[in-house]
C-alpha cells in the first residue's frame, strides 16, 4: 500500500497574518514535490506544519490514512534538511549521521554500517572523523542530507537546502539530490524560491503566492500553461501587455493584436503574456512576406550578450518587449542600438489572463 501525504484545507495564522490559506495537496509515495514561491509566501510555514514544529490553525495533515496534526515531531519520522545545514558542531561527521540511529536505539554494529553506507552514498567516507567546521559548505550540506536519511524517514523535507551555496556547487548538489531521490525512491518535499531549481528537479511543482497555491503541475505544465499571470511572471520570463477586447482582436494602446485563443477568459479587460522565445524579429520589411498579422515596427533599445543568445529589448509603441535571438542570427540581423526593426508576435504564442 502506498503511503500518501495529504494536505486538506491547511491554514496557518500568525495573529492577523494568514501565512497559509486553505491549501490542498496530495503527495504520492516516492514523489518529488517542489514548493516554489517568493520569499515570505508561506513555504517554510507549510513545511514546519508537516514536520510538526507549527500547529495548524485549521485544516488537516494526513499521512498514511491518519490525521497527524497532533503527532509530536519525533513520532512523525520525517527527515529535515535546513538551509543553514544545522549540523551539530560538537560532533564529528560520523556522530552527526549516527545521531538519529542512536535515538532509535539501534545496536552499535548496525549503526556503524549504516553510517558507512550513508557516507558512501555522498562520497564522504574519509571525512567521517572530521568536525563540520572543517568541511566546505557543499560537503556540510551533503552530511546534513544523509544525516536526515540515515534513520530511513518516511518523507524527506528540504527547506531551501542550497540557498547558502555558490552557484556552481548548487547545480552539482541539485543533481546529486535528484540522483539520490531516484535511487532511494524516497518521498521528498523541496522548498525553493529559485524557479530554475524547481523546474529542473521536481516531478510536481507547487507555485505559491501569499499563502495560497497558484498552480500545481509538472514543470512542463507550469512553464507552458501558467494558470495565472503571477505564475507566468514568476516562472520563466514573459512580456506582459494590458489590453481590451475589440471584436475578435485585442487592443493594446495603439496596437491591435490577433490572439489565437481567449483561453476561456470572458472578461473584456485582459492581460496578454508572451514568452521571449516565441517572438520573432527581422530587418525592416522582411517579416511582412512571411506573416499576415501581428507584425509591428519597433526600435532596438538594448542588446545584451548572454552567451549563446542575445537578449534584445525593443521599444514597441511605448511597451518594452524582451526577446532572445541566437547570437548568429543577431549578427546576421546587423541592427544597432536605436535602429528600427520588424517584430512578430505570433497569435498562438499568447497566454491570456483576466485583468483584475
Amino acid at each position, binding site marked *: 500500500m502506498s503511503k500518501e501525504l495529504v494536505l486538506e484545507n491547511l491554514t496557518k495564522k500568525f495573529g492577523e497574518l494568514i501565512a497559509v490559506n486553505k491549501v490542498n495537496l496530495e503527495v504520492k509515495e516516492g514523489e518529488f514535490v517542489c514548493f516554489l514561491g517568493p520569499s515570505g509566501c508561506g513555504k517554510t510555514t507549510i513545511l514546519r506544519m508537516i*514536520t510538526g*514544529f507549527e500547529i495548524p490553525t485549521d485544516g488537516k495533515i494526513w499521512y498514511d490514512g491518519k490525521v497527524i496534526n497532533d503527532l*509530536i*515531531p*519525533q*513520532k*512523525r*519520522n*520525517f*527527515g*529535515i534538511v*535546513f*538551509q*543553514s545545514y*544545522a*549540523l*551539530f*558542531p*560538537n*560532533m564529528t561527521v560520523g556522530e552527526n549521521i549516527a*545521531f*538519529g540511529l542512536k*535515538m*532509535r*536505539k*539501534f545496536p552499535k554494529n*548496525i549503526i556503524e*554500517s*549504516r553510517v558507512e*553506507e550513508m557516507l558512501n552514498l555522498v562520497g564522504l567516507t574519509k571525512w567521517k572523523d*572530521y*568536525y*563540520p*567546521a*572543517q*568541511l*566546505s*559548505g557543499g560537503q*556540510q550540506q551533503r552530511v*546534513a542530507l544523509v*544525516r*536526515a536519511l540515515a*534513520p*530511513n*524517514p*518516511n518523507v524527506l523535507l528540504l527547506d531551501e537546502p542550497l540557498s*547558502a551555496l555558490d552557484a556552481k556547487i548548487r547545480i552539482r548538489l541539485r543533481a546529486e539530490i535528484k540522483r539520490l531521490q531516484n535511487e532511494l525512491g524516497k518521498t521528498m518535499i523541496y522548498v525553493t524560491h529559485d524557479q530554475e531549481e524547481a523546474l529542473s528537479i521536481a516531478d510536481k511543482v507547487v507555485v505559491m503566492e501569499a499563502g495560497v497555491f497558484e498552480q500545481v503541475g509538472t514543470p512542463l505544465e507550469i512553464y507552458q500553461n501558467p494558470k495565472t499571470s503571477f505564475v507566468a511572471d514568476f516562472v520563466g520570463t514573459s512580456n506582459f501587455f494590458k489590453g481590451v477586447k475589440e471584436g475578435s482582436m485585442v487592443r493594446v494602446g495603439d496596437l491591435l493584436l490577433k490572439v489565437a485563443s481567449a483561453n476561456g477568459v470572458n472578461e473584456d479587460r485582459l492581460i496578454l503574456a508572451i514568452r521571449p522565445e516565441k517572438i520573432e524579429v527581422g530587418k525592416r520589411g522582411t517579416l511582412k512576406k512571411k506573416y499576415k498579422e501581428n507584425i509591428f515596427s519597433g526600435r532596438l533599445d538594448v542588446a545584451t550578450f548572454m552567451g549563446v543568445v542575445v537578449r534584445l529589448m525593443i521599444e514597441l509603441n511605448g511597451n518594452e518587449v524582451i526577446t532572445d535571438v541566437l547570437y548568429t542570427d543577431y549578427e546576421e540581423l546587423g541592427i544597432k542600438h536605436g535602429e528600427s526593426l520588424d517584430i512578430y508576435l505570433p497569435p498562438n504564442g499568447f497566454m491570456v489572463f483576466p485583468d483584475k
Partner: protein
Amino acid sequence: MANKSESFAVSTTPPTGIISDRQIVILVSLLIGFILFFFMLFPLYSILKMSFLKNGHFSLASYYKYFRTPRIARSLHHSFYVAIISMIVTTILAFFFAYALTRTTIKGKNIFYTIIMMPLISPPIIQALALILLFGRNGLITAHLLKTDWSIYGAWGIIISEIFYCLPHALVILYTTLSAVDTRIDEAAESLGANAFQVFWKVTVPSAKYGLVSAAALVFNLTITDFGNPIVIGGNYNVLATEIYSQVIGLQKFDMGATISVILLIPSVAAFLVNYYISKKSFSLISGQARPFLRPSRMWKKIGFTGYCILISACIILIYVTVVFGSFVKVWPYDWRLSFTHYNFPSIGGYASLWTSFWIAIVVGIIGASLTLVSGYIVEKAKPKGSQLLYLLSVMPAAIPGTVMGLGYILAFNRPYYIFYGTPWIIIINVVICNYTLGMLSSITNLKQIDKSMEEAATSLGASIITTFTRVVFPLSKVAFMQTFIYYFMRSMVTISAVIFLVSATVHLAAIEIIYLDMDGRMGSANAMATVIMVIVLSFLGVVRFIGKKKFSSPQMQQSSV
C-alpha cells in the same frame, strides 16, 4: 549485509519517555518560577508586610516614626546626596576614560582597560580601606605627613570610595556605546567646519546620550544600594543601606529596618528601570555596525588623554598598593617594619572563613550557572505559556538592594521549620538569587546565537528535549556556562551587603570578616583578609583560563566561515 537492509526496510520511530517534552518544559518552568517566587518575592513580601502591618492592621506608623526621628530621616537625604554626586562624577570620569580608549590613538589602551576593571574582582570595600589608610584618623597623609586632625570619614569618604567602586561598571557601558557610534559622523561635522570642541559637544556627546543615561542610572543604583563602603568609611554619616543594618542588627528593630528597606527600594528600582530600558534601546541601535577606522589623534589630544588615563589608573593602583602594603606593615603609620602577623587572624579563628567562602563560591557557581542556563533556555527557546513572567522574575533581582534582600531573608525564613536557615545553604541560595539577572541575561545572549534549526534537527531525528539539551545545547553553551560560573564565583567571594544578615555563629564568610575586623580596629588584618580574597579570586581566574584554553581549542570550536 542482509541484516543491514532488513533494519532499514521499515521506518521506525524512537521510543519516547513517559512524560512528553511539553510536560517537561512546564514542570521545569514551574520549578524555576517557584524558586524565584519563594526566594525573591516572598522575602520582599515579608518586608512589605513588616513595614505596613502593626498588630495585624494596616498602618503607616513605622513611616511616621521614620520621618519623625531626625537621625533616621537624615539617612534618606544622605543617600541621595552621596548617590547623586557619585553618579555625576563617575559618569563624567568614565566617559572621558571611555573616550580615550575608543576615540583616540593613545598607547597602552589594554593596560588602562585592565587596571580600571580591577575593582570588579575585589571586595567592594577595598576603596574605603585604602582611603582610611591614607586619610583616616591615623592616615599616612593626614596624621603622619600633614599632622592634621582632619580625616576623611563621612560623606566625602563615601563618595570617593563609590566613584572608584563604580568606575568599571560605568566604563563598560560607555565603552560599548562609544565604540559602536560611527566616528565618520565626527569627521563629517569637522569637514563642515566645526572645531574639535564643537564636534565633541554637538556630535560626540549627543550620540552617546543613551549610554550616558544608562551608565548614570547604574551608578546611582550601585551607590544608593552599596553597604560595604559606607559602613567602613561613613563614620556617623548614615545612609539608608547602613541604617537598615544598624536598626536590625544593632537595635533589633525589624519594623524600622523593613520600613527603611521599602524607602530604599523606590529609588533603586527606579534607577534600575531607567538603566534597563535605556540600555535595551541603545543596544538595538548598536547591533550590526562596523567598527570604524580611527584616524591618528593630534599630539595635544594624545598627551592630554594619556595623562588623564595615567592619573585615574594611578589612583586605582594606589588603592591596591595601599591595602596590600598595609596588610604587611606592623603598625600603620608608626611602625613600618614588614611582617606576616596580620595574616594570622587569631580573633576569627584563622582561615576557616576563607575556606567556607571558597567552597560556597564553588557551589554558588555551579548552581547559579546551571539554573540561569536552564531558565535562559526556557525563556529564549522553549517559550511555554507564561515564560514572559519567568523572564520578568529573573531580571528583578538586580533592582533589589542587597541589604533589603538580606533583611527579607531573615524576616521570611527565620522560622524553625525552614531548616536551611542558619546553614550555608541560605547563603548559597541568596547569592544565586541576588545575582540572577546578569547570569540569566548572559545565558540568553549565548542561546540566541544557537541556530534554532540545530534543535529542530535534533528533534526531527528523534531526540527528546532532554537529549537535545544535554547533547546539543549544553555542549554549545560550555563557554558561556564557564563565564557565568566565574561571574558567580567572583560575586560570591566578594559580596557583602545581603549575606551580612545571613552569616551566623557557625557560618563565617571571609568578605564579611573584613568588616568585623575593621570594626574591631584590626585594620591590618582587614587589609590582609581583603588581600587574601583577591589572591584567591585572581589565582582561580588564572587556573580556569588555563584549563579553558586547553579545553576549548579543539577543532570543533573552530568557527567555520559559512
